[in-house]
């Protein structure tokens, strides 16, 4: 049986590994290549690495680092950050990355989704969407450039367009819940999950096994993305890369079935 994917999401800034809260205040937590090696040993399901600087600083992806991460990874890798053309997407895939995530560039130039899907196959094209709950009325706004700029488009129509244009996966990120470790924005995930028939990965807010279980219990086949939970340990958030063992994961899935 296909299992839900439990996916550490690590953020990179100035070649260092960082963690944010509500997309702000990046805190340095280590070296990305070292993290990849530890996640190898932990046998994680998949890994997402996002360069949070590249797009806002108008930099192209750091191809050399990507190549080093990809060669080291013994699990599937998804890379995102600073991608603005299909040529870059093709180059990243050729470096040994399984999936490429686009965000701002997909909104600014949606044709890039079709072109990338034709070139590298839908299975390797991920569109990530950063959402923020509206303060005064219902619904969500989409933000680009690492949460800095609101982009006027309806969330659901964007989701449908992304799928129609040939993306193979959506990573749905909650800016409100990022780094808080108090659980996913289940309303947001529910809203999107009913509309899509491509794989969906939820991100933002996961802080405990219970959060993972709630997500799997409600949505079964879903990507369970988490940043803080897998780089911090304990009440005082000491930096320690961690991930459930095979047995812990199996127990977690079995317990979920009992909820």
């Amino acid at each position, binding site marked *: *049986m*296909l299992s839900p994917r439990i996916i550490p999401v690590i953020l990179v800034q100035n070649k260092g590994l960082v963690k944010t809260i509500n997309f702000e205040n990046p805190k340095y937590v280590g070296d990305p290549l070292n993290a990849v090696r530890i996640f190898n040993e932990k046998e994680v399901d998949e890994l997402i690495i996002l360069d949070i600087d590249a797009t806002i600083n108008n930099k192209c992806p750091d191809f050399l680092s990507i190549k080093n991460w*990809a060669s080291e990874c013994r699990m*599937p890798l998804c890379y995102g950050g600073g991608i603005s053309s299909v040529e870059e997407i093709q180059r990243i895939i050729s470096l040994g990355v399984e999936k490429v995530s686009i965000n701002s560039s997909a909104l600014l130039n949606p044709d890039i989704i079709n072109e990338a899907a034709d070139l590298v196959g839908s*299975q390797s094209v991920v569109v990530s969407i950063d959402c923020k709950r509206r303060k005064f009325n219902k619904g969500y706004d989409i933000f680009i450039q690492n949460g800095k700029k609101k982009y006027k488009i309806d969330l659901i129509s964007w989701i449908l367009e992304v799928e129609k244009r040939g993306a193979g996966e959506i990573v749905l990120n909650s800016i409100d819940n990022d780094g808080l470790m108090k659980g996913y924005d289940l309303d947001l995930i529910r809203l999107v999950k009913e509309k899509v028939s*491509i794989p969906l990965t939820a991100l933002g807010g996961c802080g405990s096994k219970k959060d993972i279980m709630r997500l799997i219990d409600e949505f079964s086949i879903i990507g369970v993305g988490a940043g803080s939970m897998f780089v911090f340990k304990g009440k005082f958030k000491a930096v320690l890369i961690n991930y459930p063992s095979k047995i812990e994961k199996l127990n977690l899935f079995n317990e979920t079935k009992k909820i």
Partner: protein
Amino acid sequence: MITIIDYGLGNLGAFSNVYKKLNIDVRFASNVGDLKKASKLILPGVGTFDQAMNKLNSSGLRNYLDELVIKKKIPIIGICVGMQIMALKSDEGVLPGLGWINGKVNRLSLNNKNSPLPHMGWNDIKIQKRSPLIDNLDNSKRFYFLHSYYFQCQNLDDVIANVNYGFDFPCIINHKNIFGIQCHPEKSHYNGVNLLKNFAELN
């Protein structure tokens, strides 16, 4: 020597890293000269069927590969799209495949909200026949999958293992010296490393 066919597609570094950690010599081949010393071949592949066929057709390796695989019976394993292009044809493209294993590649048409496409993630394989390629796997027999098309074998005897996603379909296949695997052994941790080791040790 284990030789990874470098025709501009797929994750060559991931394979060579696995073999380096196992202390098994490995080299890349992007021209006929490089292929000459091959005792085992790996045909990687990421992307679409036609793209893979186009790249292979224009690589200058195609004819010599046919000779190595069909006449000299050098063991070869195709991975993901590298496996799919071993078929006669595919729903995904218009170009003919290599036709090394009798079968065609179909789209996984599931139309089911509970089984999104692509088939993405860790799934258990179901063994159909014994093969040294799958010796010493974990009890769980899980591998990483990422695809929307599957290889439909004409001869069921060619199927080593199936996987279930909506229905059962082949994910590890073998005809004579030719092997194919839909999942990604280079990205499947312990089981994947073992499978690649088994391939290296095939007689």
